[in-house]
């Protein structure tokens, strides 16, 4: 406003000066009148300027106070919005604690309650195998592509401490035979603590080390000859646990009892007596800082059961009698008891075992002795059949080998240079039948008294879920059918020549 005043005064002054210079000759009275008029104009203008200045000073505080109120109002709105967001986040976090969770990944498809007290997970195992036998024109129908295992596996937990497993088997194909679905695992496990658990139902008895390894993780398509002397899945109750984080693992149970290399396929018992199985396994360096020895473990499993002499409901899987036969890697029977042979009285087993894993190296060995009294008519004998194996592996791509398989560092993804993990494996195994079995209880012209098998294989782990195997197995026999005898059925057809079989497998597990 002061500038405006200055301009007005300057303008008026200029006018005055111009007027002064313009006409020297103007009459004095006219000049005086004009000067007076101009003075009046100046005064009016000055008054107007003052009025304008006064109004603007009044307007400034009013604007400032409404601005402040607006700002405060906006500030409150922002704070309210921010606080609402905080409350919503707290509420969402509280709600999330009670919402069930759904997961889908390499470990299966699962859902659980918010507190994880209730969990259900669906896994699966599919194994598509091929077996190609060489130099066996005398045996028909054993070359095959088969669905070795096809299992939906349902596991879960209820009320935090009760685990369950239900696994039917739709595979387990046998060349030339129709596949009958069956229940492989169906059990409940109560977990009071890691060192005190009680299991009930149908599951693997705690005896053989290689047998206890999951079907998903075995080094070869088929387990070794040792498994011929180990009891398979059975119905029973077991107390088990891991002490000090697994430094000591124990298991002891009461079961129906199954024959060597057999599993209970009927889901009921077959005799009045019960069997007792137990195992103790120690990993003494597990909790130490000695990395090279942390995965060294050893122990022993065993069983005792008693069969009634008049047992006729056994678990037959042989050409005769109640005792099962023994099978090669190619799942061909090379030994069977003669017709009329029954299991009698006690059956005892002992299996010392050990494993060692360190980096890409894996070693596993076990020995099994199965002492079984058998009888045929009035004759009876106590037999001691033995078997042992040693297997090893090396992960060529450097990943760690474990009892629970190999996890590739880089999943198979050739576009991005990922090829999975590659492992080479080898195994040697023997099974020896007690010579006292021959000739009364087993026909020496048909059944071998011993088998020696070596195997070599390559396992390719594409990722956690998919694996491809290829292996070769050669089994030689002691005794058995003569080479020039053309037997049309096992065990004669098998024991007459060494078995050479090439395996492949494509496996999906999740």
């Amino acid at each position, binding site marked *: 406003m002061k500038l405006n005043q200055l301009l007005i005064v300057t303008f008026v002054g200029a006018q005055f000066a111009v007027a002064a210079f313009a006409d020297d000759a103007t009459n004095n009275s006219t000049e005086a009148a004009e000067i007076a008029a101009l003075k009046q104009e100046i005064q009016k203008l000055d008054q107007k300027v003052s009025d304008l200045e006064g109004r603007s000073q009044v307007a400034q505080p009013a604007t400032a106070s409404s601005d402040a109120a607006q700002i405060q109002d906006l500030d*409150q709105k922002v*704070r*309210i919005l921010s*606080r609402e967001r905080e*409350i919503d986040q707290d509420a969402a976090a509280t709600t999330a604690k009670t919402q069930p969770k759904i997961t889908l990944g390499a470990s299966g498809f699962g859902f659980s309650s918010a507190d994880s007290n209730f969990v259900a997970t669906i896994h699966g195992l599919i194994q598509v195998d091929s077996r190609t036998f060489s130099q066996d024109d005398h045996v028909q129908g054993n070359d095959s592509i088969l669905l070795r295992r096809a299992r939906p596996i349902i596991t879960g937990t209820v009320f935090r401490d009760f685990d369950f497993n239900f696994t039917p088997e739709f595979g387990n194909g046998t060349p030339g035979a129709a596949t009958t679905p069956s229940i492989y695992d169906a059990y409940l496990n109560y977990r009071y603590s890691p060192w005190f658990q009680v299991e009930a139902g149908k599951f693997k008895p705690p005896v053989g080390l290689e047998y206890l390894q999951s079907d998903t993780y075995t080094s070869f398509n088929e387990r070794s000859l040792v498994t011929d002397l180990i009891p398979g899945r059975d119905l029973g109750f077991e107390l088990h646990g891991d002490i000090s984080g697994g430094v000591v693992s124990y298991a002891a149970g009461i079961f129906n009892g199954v024959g060597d290399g057999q599993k209970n396929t009927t889901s009921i018992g077959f005799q009045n007596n019960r069997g007792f199985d137990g195992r103790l396994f120690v990993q003494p360096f597990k909790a130490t800082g000695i990395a090279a020895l942390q995965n060294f473990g050893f122990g022993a499993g065993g069983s005792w059961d008693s069969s009634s002499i008049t047992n006729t409901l056994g678990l037959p899987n042989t050409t005769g009698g109640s005792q099962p036969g023994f099978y090669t890697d190619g799942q061909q029977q090379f030994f069977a008891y003669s017709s009329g042979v029954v299991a009698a009285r006690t059956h005892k087993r002992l299996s010392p075992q050990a494993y060692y894993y360190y980096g890409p190296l894996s070693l596993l060995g076990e020995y099994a002795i199965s002492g079984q009294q058998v009888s045929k008519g009035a004759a009876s004998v106590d037999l001691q059949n033995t078997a042992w194996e040693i297997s090893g592996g090396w992960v060529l791509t450097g990943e760690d080998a474990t009892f629970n398989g190999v996890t590739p560092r880089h999943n198979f993804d050739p576009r991005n240079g990922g090829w999975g993990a590659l492992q080479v494996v080898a195994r040697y195994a023997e099974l020896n039948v007690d010579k006292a079995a021959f000739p009364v209880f087993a026909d020496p012209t048909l059944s071998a008294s011993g088998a020696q098998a070596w195997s070599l294989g390559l396992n390719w782990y594409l990722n956690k879920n998919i694996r491809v195997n290829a292996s070769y197995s050669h089994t030689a026999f002691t005794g058995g059918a003569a080479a020039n005898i053309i037997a049309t059925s096992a065990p004669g057809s098998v024991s007459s020549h060494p078995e050479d079989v090439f395996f492949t497998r494509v496996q999906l597990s999740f």
Partner: protein
Amino acid sequence: MKTFLKILLASSLAISASAKEIKLLNVSYDPTRELYTEYNAAFAKYWKAKTGDDVTISQSHGGSGKQAQSVIAGLEADVVTLALSYDIDAISQQAKLLPADWQKRLPNNSTPYTSTIVFFVRKGNPRGIKDWDDLVKPGLKVVVPNPKTSGGARWAYLAAYAYALETYGHDDAKAKDFITKLYKNVPILDSGARGSTITFAQRGIGDVLLAWENEAHLALKEFGDDKFEIVTPSLSILAEPPVTVVDKNAKRHGTTEAATAYLNYLYSDEGQEIAAKNFYRPRNEAIAAKYAASFTQLKLVTVDREFGGWTKAQAAHFADGGTFDQIYQPQ
């Protein structure tokens, strides 16, 4: 001598072997944290001296209604110390964890202390808030928790409603209109009293907080009386937060004796002193007189007299479709 030492050792072992470890869970409403922190230490010391046993009390705090629902859903409370009897009645009726006549088991209807609702304002009281009438002025922002979840919020609502009833000659329609205007000024609802204190005092939202009296005093101590002050209205409600043992839980845990003693001790001189120091109005008259300066005298009305009891008040105002649902619209 050897025999004497053996006896002494055996006795020591026997005594130490017989000393029990007792764990109690006290599920309480939102603003009682400081009270029970102090009280629990005092009770543990008392119980150890009396019985030789070690008692550890865990606390759970939250909006009273929410806490009651948690206990109904399975939270293993040995005792509940909630904001209003209605919430404990719900535990009795829905979960059958304690008898229906639980309130008769302890003195003063199982309420060892009382409280009320006051106004917590910014220092200098810039909005000139003196009474409930001021809370319905347009543009004023009132902070109060959600009465659906918070016991304190229900007390505050009923205090405001009671004021309106007293002011408008118990005309329910006018009281409803009053409460509608009040809640139009509520920009945000926390789930519990402590949340509302955070909203007002820490987040700087609102012009007035309708707070538990004890919560207001504690907030003054924590945030400073140079930032806030308490305004006592002309009328408020007598809030009677009750306590009780949750019988079935305590029996299952083997803690009935300790839980009962825990609540009884609230009525002891030490318990009443701790309550008063934490700005709860003690039932003990002598201790109340000792701490009289901490508590402003004001007209207090009761739920029973103004609303016919909690069951009627809950049904009329806070149940689904009740008055609160009718009048409150989130902003």
